[in-house]
């Protein structure tokens, strides 16, 4: 039985067994986590198993993959001036080193596997006061950039620190009743960065 035959059968199987509603569909955040390659393996397999049998989720995942992949392609171009400067400096050191740097991609690693783990606020915490954000130290980190986003994804505040805590008191207004997202990007001494997963909290 060739691939086309199996595909035909599989398409029919998917169409015939399609979920009748979206009640069991994974959350959009899970689909995004797959597109960003930061979902833990066990959960990833469960979600993908559903997605491959659910046309609606497949289309949503394809859309998120589109946005994520385009974002990944956009970022290097904005790093280009820095890479060019680095290349120019290294040119003085030696052609061999230059070749290695020019062909190097800065590693961007996301998620808990990379060690960029958020500690507090815990996911979904409802707080009375502007929080103190805490995360685990990351080996090799030169410093950290912490970004807090509003409900619409707007950047509310971006802070840079060499510490692993930062208080938001007096830094920005966080109107009550809203949900906020935050993440940490560790910039590594040897170049590249590591990103945490996105944390969420509410202010009461």
């Amino acid at each position: 039985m060739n691939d086309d035959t199996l595909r035909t059968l599989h398409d029919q199987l998917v169409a015939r067994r399609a979920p009748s509603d979206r009640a069991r569909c994974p959350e959009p955040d899970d689909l995004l986590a797959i597109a960003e390659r930061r979902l833990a393996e066990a959960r990833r397999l469960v979600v993908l198993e559903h997605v491959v049998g659910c046309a609606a989720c497949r289309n949503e995942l394809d859309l998120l993959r589109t946005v994520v992949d385009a974002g990944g392609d956009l970022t290097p171009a904005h790093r280009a001036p820095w890479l060019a400067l680095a290349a120019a400096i290294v040119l003085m050191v030696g052609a061999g080193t230059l070749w290695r740097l020019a062909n190097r991609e800065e590693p961007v690693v996301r998620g808990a596997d990379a060690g960029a783990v958020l500690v507090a606020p815990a996911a979904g915490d409802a707080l009375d006061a502007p929080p103190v954000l805490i995360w685990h130290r990351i080996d090799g980190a030169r410093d950290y950039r912490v970004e807090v986003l509003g409900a619409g994804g707007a950047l509310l505040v971006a802070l840079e620190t060499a510490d692993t805590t930062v208080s938001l008191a007096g830094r920005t207004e966080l109107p009550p009743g809203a949900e906020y997202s935050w993440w940490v990007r560790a910039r590594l001494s040897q170049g590249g960065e590591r990103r945490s997963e996105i944390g969420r909290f509410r202010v009461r």
Partner: protein
Amino acid sequence: MSPPPDDVSVALERLLARYAGLVRSAARSHRADEATVDEILQEVRIRLWRAIERGEKADALPASYVYRAAVSATLDLIRGRRRKREVPLEESRLEEPRLEEPRLDDAGAIPASLGTDRTVDEEAAMELLDQALAGMVATRRVAVRLHLAGYHLREIAAMMDSSEARARNLVYRGLADLRTRLTSMGLNPRGRG
């Protein structure tokens, strides 16, 4: 919405144009719905203008900001469509068979194009496929099903957060496993590939 200064406008439009090109290119590659992609790009534009109006500096709107705005807009759109229980995102796409759908002959048999050596109706064949898939190791099953759903190895690797070599291995070994299981269930291949 008052227009931002021209230099901001030019810088932002340049960034948006570049991002839009990348998104449309990725959309073609990922078979994403173009109308939905346009909707997202429009929402990204609105969010970026609003950010500038709130006092964000144009040079503080790097690629990562555009990326976050696009992701956020996409999630909002998906959640909104789920809430409205609309037919989401070109749902009919998968329901149309990729290949010409096999038709039962007068005796209710799967045509020879399915490569079976026994008479079995489509529902039974699907049931066997379902059972065979269920018996497989999860990683192989998911890789094989993504392959059968039309995803390329590069896409499978990305979705499974693995290398392309590992994805290829999972798909090929998985397909062999699947064929062995189908054969043992009586849905015998007839040397068609």
